[in-house]
């Protein structure tokens, strides 16, 4: 027996590098590594040569220079005298703003549509199917541009709000929906305003604490504690009490017509609104399909088993169907969020100044620092997507079915 497993004796031959399985993988990897190094050094050599020929160097010094352009939608203070770095930060915040807003609305619309598509109502389910198919099969860029065009064409201009025979009016005297963008009241925090906010957050935490306490009691002692009305009370009473006790420290600044435009309040430009809306309804069509697939993936036997245990329909949904459906829905849902964030880079088509518009658009064109700008741009998106993947993996591990 030993003679069979004897290693082949004799001296090492060169052909063993390819034909002997012990060495072959090493050979291939070495070749791959050498090719990779060769490719990169060729690219790097070209880069150095080209940069020298063009009289350029690789440096991020331009980020400290004044940007000299204006950004009309921003979350933080910024003037045209601010640096390119500041402009990029404004862009990052704008990207995150539209991504977060878009993810929230897309989830809401997507869940509603996905559930309605499963409804028994023939007309509604067909209508939802048409919506999903139309939005999934047309490029998001076209939807962004179309919705921008619709917003500008359909909504009234600020001048329509003027005069006695105004053709448009503000909703509840505080919201104005115009073709230029939406105006909403801005909360102004007086002294003590933050205390009200803190109390509000504390009472939200309190509501969750109450829920946990009730569940614990239920499991430990079998006692059912009603949490609905205490929760509602906890939500409103302490905050309102503190608000009036402190003498109304938070006031609202209403947008008002001044000249040809509105002044004051929160202003969201039409580019932000249409980008947000377009990304939401486009992504919602995909999310609706995920939700539908997730609910269909829970086998009918589960529902029937729960029903035969005597659970009511609401409880069946909450305790049996949803926990299993969510396990199927959430991973593709999160990758849809990732897609939405990446698609938000199309903001450049409607002039919304996200990171692609500032760093990858005007800064790149003004300074001519193409490599540095694009590299920074890619790093940012890569960081976001890696972060979202990490969250997804953590979630998958948390809800993974623990098989025995």
């Amino acid at each position, binding site marked *: 027996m030993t003679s069979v497993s004897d290693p082949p004796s004799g001296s090492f031959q060169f052909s063993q590098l*390819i034909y002997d399985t012990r060495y072959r*993988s090493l050979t*291939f*990897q070495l070749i*791959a*590594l050498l090719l*990779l190094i060769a490719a990169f050094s060729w*690219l790097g050599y*070209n*880069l150095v*040569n*080209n*940069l020298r*020929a063009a009289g350029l160097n690789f440096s991020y010094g331009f980020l400290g220079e004044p940007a000299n352009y204006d950004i009309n939608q921003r979350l933080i203070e910024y003037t045209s005298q601010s640096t390119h770095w500041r402009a990029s930060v404004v862009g990052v915040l704008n990207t995150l703003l539209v991504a977060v807003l878009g993810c929230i609305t897309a989830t809401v619309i997507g869940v509603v549509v996905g559930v*309605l598509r499963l*409804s*028994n*109502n*023939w*007309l*509604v389910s067909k*209508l939802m199917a048409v919506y999903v*198919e*139309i939005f*999934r*099969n*047309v*490029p*998001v*860029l*076209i939807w962004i*541009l*179309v919705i921008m*065009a619709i917003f500008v*064409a359909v909504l009234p201009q600020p001048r329509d709000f003027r005069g006695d025979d105004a053709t448009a009016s503000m909703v509840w005297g505080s919201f104005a929906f115009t073709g230029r963008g939406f105006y909403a009241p801005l909360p102004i925090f007086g002294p003590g305003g933050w205390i009200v906010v803190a109390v509000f957050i504390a009472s939200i935490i309190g509501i969750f604490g109450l829920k946990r306490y009730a569940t614990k009691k239920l499991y430990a002692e079998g006692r059912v504690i009603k949490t609905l009305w205490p929760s509602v009370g906890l939500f409103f009473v302490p905050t309102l009490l503190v608000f009036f006790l402190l003498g109304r420290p938070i006031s609202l600044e209403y947008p008002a017509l001044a000249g040809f435009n509105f002044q004051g309040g929160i202003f969201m430009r039409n580019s932000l609104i249409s980008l947000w809306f377009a990304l939401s309804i486009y992504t919602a069509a995909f999310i609706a399909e995920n939700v539908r697939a997730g609910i269909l993936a829970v086998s009918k036997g589960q529902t029937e088993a729960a029903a035969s245990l005597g659970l009511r329909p609401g409880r069946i949904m909450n305790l049996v169907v949803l926990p299993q459906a969510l396990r199927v829905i959430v991973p593709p849902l999160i990758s849809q969020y990732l897609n939405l964030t*990446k*698609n938000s*880079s*199309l903001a*450049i*088509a409607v002039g919304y100044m996200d990171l*692609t518009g500032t760093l*990858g658009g005007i800064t*790149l064109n003004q300074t001519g620092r*193409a*490599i540095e700008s*694009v590299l920074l*741009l*890619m790093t940012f*998106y*890569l960081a*976001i*997507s*890696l972060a979202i993947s990490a969250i997804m993996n953590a979630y998958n591990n948390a809800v993974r079915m623990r098989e025995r």
Partner: protein
Amino acid sequence: MSDTHAHAVAYVRDTMLPQQPPPASEAGAVKWMRENLFSGWFNTILTLVAVYIIFRLLSGSLPWFLGGIWNADSLATCREVLDGATGGCFAVLTERWNQLLFGVAYPNDQYWRPTLAFVLLLVAVAPVLYPKAPRKMLIFTGLYPFVGFWLIWGGTIFAPLVGLLGFVVGYLLFKQVERQSFAGGAALAVVGALVTWWAGGFLVGAAEGVIALEPVPSRDLGGFMLNLILGTVCISLSLPIGILLALGRQSDLPIVKWICVVFIEFIRGVPLITLLFVANVVLAYFLPPGTNFDLVLRVIIMITMFASAYIAEVIRGGLAALPRGQYEAADSLGLDYGQSMRLIILPQALKISIPGIVNVAVGLFKDTTLVSVISMFDMVGMIRGPILASTEWNGVYWELWSFAILLFFVVCYSISQYSQWLERQLQRDHR
């Protein structure tokens, strides 16, 4: 018993009553509507809301569509003809259809070439998409890239012929040496093809204008044609690359594996638009000074990289879905890595991943519109640029966008319907 009963009562029916039709509310359309539309107060509200939405949509769009003007030479003329009535100005489509489909610069008298290329494309993909089509057609599929290239870009027929010849020479050399050494055959094939192309380059240079179509430079391509070209070329190129990447990511060789993982995750983590920026402004820095190859080719390279990363992930899913036993069975038959992949694993894994690949293809085709952002005149670029900016048609949004939506919807919806059809076919196989 029955007798006594019969005597006791005045009348007993001795024949069956004829069957009555079911009550009106339990039959036909009424029953269907009751069950499907009005089966409760909540459902009724939903139905009414849906009816209202459909009514609003139709009442808005139907008069606009039916009252449309199909013959006019500018928006102003259109408005004159309409004279205040509701109606779309579809004349922009009848007047500018050629720009929407082929771009501004493509020579007018050569439109038959891309059209023919498109029809031949349908013939070429038929045997790939429908397993029942005659296998002989695959020969045409293999020839199509060269035919399509010649039809669209024009020039002498020797250019695509030399390209084809290179592949043929490479294949023949490979077949000769394959028996002795697989790797040696592959290396010899590459060398043979390169030599053929290098030598053929002189022939093509000399034979300029022999059996030639009017040459069309890449920058003259545009319109929906450009979307179709980018979509088809990038998907077909990214399939083999995607398979290699997926195999690399699954492989036991750590260096190869990490190269593939980094490439895939990097490409999937950045938006396509940043890759297009790279094609547009950065790629030139990484090439030898003086190389100047055109934007369409650079864009094709970047989109292909993008698509192959996504396809690699789809195929990796297919590879992972195969039962472990298939790999072990291949090993126990004594097949080496290449054989087991080629004969056992890939045919099954690819079959599983076809729906995913089709999804990527649809997504990629939609993403080809992004090239309009780096100022190439595809369909979207065409509408936003030359047409909406022209004095005649400034302001015709709805008609143009509806046309674009319609075209993309038709193509993408048919592809996704095809994928669902194929999924059903494959399911039947497994049963």
